[in-house]
């Protein structure tokens, strides 16, 4: 296969598969994006995972455990999709641990209250779905197919998050106040999950030409706001944006400008929470080394025994 054939497949909106020829930059862009996505799944297990042992009912504990387990599974499919591009999981994990690859900066926020678990499901998973549904049509086959499965599970996560928020909103005044605080904490970070404004997003044009990305950051952000504001109204919670107003002419909500300086700081991944996220991962990896070595040593012994037998 050649550049011409690659271009023809992209133009015809067909899939590129692992054995197909592809431009180096296409491969690099995908490795970076898929790895960052995989890292986000496994780092994202932490802020919610902290609440499994503290969940306020057995029903919620079970749902949250299943959700965090799904996230580990998503990490595994995504590392698998990245491996089909010729990198291996251990190498990608090293890059996460030494901070040369990033994860979504949304997980650099704290989850001090139970309602944060609800807000993450409702808003963060909601934003993730808006970002990810178009990726099901990503030109790279293994990534697109992994995303189909992931999006199905994410929509379940989003519903459970909304359900937590709904129960809190209909609960005691303390519970409703807790839900409002969580919305205040997570609204702007969720808005920023779509990345910088289109005028400031250098990679968008190329990723769209390659069929990796299907909508611009601002298009997806608008879609998210339009879908989420009515849900907040249903909950009886106030969206913390004084500029939020329905624009009849555009048929969309107008909304305020996020604090892009804060976004830049979060993306840098410096500070107490990012350090905690990475050190938790590094420690788990380092403390598990002897276990992984034991599994390899045992498998080698078994192979030897089979050869002898």
């Amino acid at each position, binding site marked *: 296969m050649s550049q011409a054939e690659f271009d023809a497949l992209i133009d015809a909106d067909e899939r590129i598969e692992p054995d197909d020829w592809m431009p180096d930059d296409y491969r690099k862009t995908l490795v970076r994006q898929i790895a960052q996505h995989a890292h986000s799944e*496994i780092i994202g*297990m*932490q802020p919610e*995972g902290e609440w*499994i*042992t*503290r*969940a*306020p*009912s*057995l*029903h*919620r*504990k*079970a749902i949250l*455990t*299943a959700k*965090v*387990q799904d996230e*580990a*599974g998503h*990490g*595994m499919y995504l*590392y698998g999709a990245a491996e089909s591009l010729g990198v291996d999981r251990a190498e990608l994990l090293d890059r996460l641990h030494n901070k040369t690859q990033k994860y979504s900066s949304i997980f650099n926020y704290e989850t001090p209250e*139970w309602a944060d678990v609800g807000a993450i499901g409702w808003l963060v998973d909601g934003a993730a779905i808006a970002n990810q549904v178009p990726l099901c049509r990503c030109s790279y086959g293994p990534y697109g197919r992994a995303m189909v499965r992931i999006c199905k599970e994410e929509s379940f996560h989003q519903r459970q998050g909304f359900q*937590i928020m709904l*129960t*809190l909103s209909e*609960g*005691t005044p*303390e*519970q409703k106040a807790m839900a409002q605080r969580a919305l205040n904490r997570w609204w702007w970070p969720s808005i920023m999950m779509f990345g910088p404004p289109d005028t400031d997003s250098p990679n968008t044009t190329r990723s769209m030409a390659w069929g990796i990305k299907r909508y611009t950051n601002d298009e997806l952000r608008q879609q998210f706001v339009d879908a989420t504001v009515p849900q907040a109204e249903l909950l009886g919670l106030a969206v913390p944006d004084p500029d939020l107003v329905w624009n009849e002419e555009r048929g969309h909500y107008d909304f305020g400008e996020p604090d892009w300086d804060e976004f830049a700081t979060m993306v840098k991944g410096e500070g107490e929470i990012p350090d905690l996220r990475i050190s*938790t*991962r590094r*420690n*788990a990896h380092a*403390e*598990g*080394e*002897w*276990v*992984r*070595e*034991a*599994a390899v*040593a*045992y498998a080698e*012994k078994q192979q030897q025994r089979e050869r002898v037998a």
Partner: protein
Amino acid sequence: MPADLLTHVLRQADRTLVLSHRLAEWLTHAPELEEDMALANISLDLLGQARHLYTYAGKLAGHGHDEDHFAYERDATDFRNPLIVEQPNGDFAVTMARQVLHDHAAFLYWESMCSSTDETLAALAARAVNETRFHLRHSTGWMIRLGDGTDESHRRAQAGLDTMWPFAEELLGADDEDDLRTAGLIGPRFDGAWRAAVGATVAEATLTMPPEPPTRSGGLRGEHSEHLAPMLKVMQGLARAHPGATW
């Protein structure tokens, strides 16, 4: 005083809830991603068993309490789990040693409960025995890999077994449940089968059975180690801060 069926059901419910909680503590700290998934899965199965058992306990007690009452509104001294499941996780080998001792007993227990004269428990056992078969495959597989892996993993696996062994006896059941056995509500004791099964795993793992018999007990009577109360404080804190709230 002989134990009634409610006490027996609570012992099983508390065993599964407390162990589920300990395994959930591993999440995001496991040696590899596959283990985060496996431990979450086992934790979730145990939690499911606990929820069914608590719901049934509510019916047996006749006071209309739901599963969350038992999990969130009782103190450590009300819990009836065997001491082994409340012990801290330690390293991965300590956790797997506890799982091996537990899973062999849980499997034999649920297998025997499939023919309980109590229809609810027999139905629950039919499902739990299949789940436990998978848990047992996971824990014995790891114990063998660790024991017969590297020098370090062998040393840690032996230390894990030595740490958990003193608590193993209570997994075989309580000595005040003979009336329930006679009535066919719970199955016969399985001490011999358990010892043989554990012995086989330990041998295949190239480990040594601890020479002394297990000595620690009390959990089934509500006499716990120092580790249960702090664990319950974490688990129950939020629920207790909002009495009567729905989540």
